């Protein structure tokens, strides 16, 4: 007969294995476990009800923060400031064109930050550059650890001036 202490240890090991397994699954799936990043998430705003404050982007068919979708920049309307994707650093710019009946609810970058998830990627397809650079993806990436490999970074981790 198994001693009680051994049973407790076996149970604890089982719990530990389950926790690790669930954690691994969570890490592997990353953003896609938390948010639907399929090619077409929605056809109308109601399809985005599972994401608080989100609306359906009529062009990309993705659920985006409650900032209205704007006309998509194309070669044909390039140069038209009314269809700029708001990438000039002014977070309020371009958020005044409504789509799907949704009005602006804060600035684009505020909404983007709200959309950011713990894994550090941005699944909501907002326009600012950093969001696109760090958008969710299933491709292979290879991190370069600046803090480990660069000995000349400044005290705050920033770049020092060129000689």
């Amino acid at each position, binding site marked *: 007969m198994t001693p009680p202490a051994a049973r407790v240890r076996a149970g604890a090991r089982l719990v530990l294995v389950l926790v690790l397994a669930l954690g691994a699954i969570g890490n592997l799936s990353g953003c896609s476990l938390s948010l639907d990043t399929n090619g*077409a998430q929605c056809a109308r705003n109601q399809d985005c009800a599972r994401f608080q404050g989100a609306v359906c982007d009529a062009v990309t068919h993705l659920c985006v923060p409650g900032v209205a979708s704007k006309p998509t*920049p194309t070669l044909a309307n390039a140069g038209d400031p009314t269809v700029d994707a708001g990438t000039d650093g002014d977070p309020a710019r371009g958020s005044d064109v409504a789509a799907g009946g949704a009005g602006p609810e804060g600035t684009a970058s505020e909404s983007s930050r709200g959309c950011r998830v713990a894994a550090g990627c941005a699944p909501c397809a907002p326009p600012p550059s950093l969001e696109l650079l760090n958008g969710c993806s299933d*491709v292979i990436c*290879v991190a370069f650890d600046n803090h480990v490999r*660069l000995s000349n970074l400044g005290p705050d981790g920033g770049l020092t001036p060129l*000689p």
Partner: protein
Amino acid sequence: MSRPQPSSRHTQARAAEGAILTPPCRAGVPTRAAEDLVLVLVLVLGLGLGAVRSASAADCTTARNPVYVAGSTAAKPILAQVAKFLAAQNPPVTIVYSGQGSCAGVDAILNGTPLRGAVATATALSTWDATGAELKCDLAAAPAPATTSGATPGTTSALPTRTVVADIGLSDVFASTCFSLPGGLPSNVQDFLGPVQTMTFVVPKSSPERSISAEAAYYVFGFGATSGASPWTDEAWLLHRDAQSGTERMIATAIGVPPGRWKGTGTTSSTDLLGRLTAPGTGAQTLGILATDVAQSNLGMLNILAYQHFGQTCGYYPDRDATTNEKINVRDGHYAIWGPVHLFTRLGGAGYPANAYAGDVIGYVTGTKVAPAGLDLVALEAQSHVVPPCAMRVRRTEELGPLASFAPPGACGCYYDKVANGSTSCQVCASAHDCPAASPACSYGYCETQ
């Protein structure tokens, strides 16, 4: 489609080419040594030069309906294919090309710097015939100032001494990356955007390195031996280009090291850099820069590094991984160092390119003019490792400027995936009726968003 006959001058040039092979004779009797020399020459010309036929005496200005193009070498493969089809048109149009570097292409249009080049000095210009064969020709500058844009279509001249100014300046970078243009381009110059070119950091195959950050590149090429970025601290093995290079200027903009302040060893061309990068003795300490068309054509000898831009937490290859060719990370904004190929031209009074034939070339390369039957530019661009605008999902309007989402009309992303990698997950269609609501447009044979 009729095949044009080569111009008389080109015919003469080929005849002259044969004359080069005439064995040197002494007292009219060829010696054994002379015969050996001839044999060697034949082998060198036949095997070493391949399909490129050097026409040492050909005069570029005698080409039929010439369109003079100067600048980047990166877009030469595409230009060559367009040239082949234009040469087969009726009337035939001849692209006369001088690969001088991106900023030289900008300079040729902005400042009207005359074109010149000669076989004798290894600076000859290129033309292509209707079979796609590349021919070389000479162009000598005359002392008189330029007054016109190229030669009058269909005419010939006896001597290659007239001044010729480029009709199209080809560049991998914006004009403002080469020159200070606080007021923008002159009103009579237009910048047409073509396929997207990507720049990369490369290492020899023997290097264990797989990625680099913008911060690391800043220290390596900005500080050289004192970069503190091991293993890239030996300036003899830090290979870069020169200030005229679009590759260097685009990467300089990305990492924040001005072109004139790069540490390391300068090289004269992508070919020169490639040779040094893959020479014996290179290894972990070696780092270089190349455009993807050159880098991906030599993956047997080098590796492209994943690049981690400022603000990114991971480095990305231009493609899904180091072996594929669909440029997905360029197209969706994960890979940062890219920009459109620029075709600069002067506009005539009506707002169109001053040389109408130049307008055709620009239209084909940028995709705004329906390509001739048989010319599949999307496939050609995939094979050339550049991305047509219709396959992009992001765009930018200045060098390494902010990214914006982009949904091109007449999208070709699915077809580009198919021709670049051999497969796509997109739904095949014959018309929009075959497509689901999520991707309702049938474009290039696949269901796209629009």
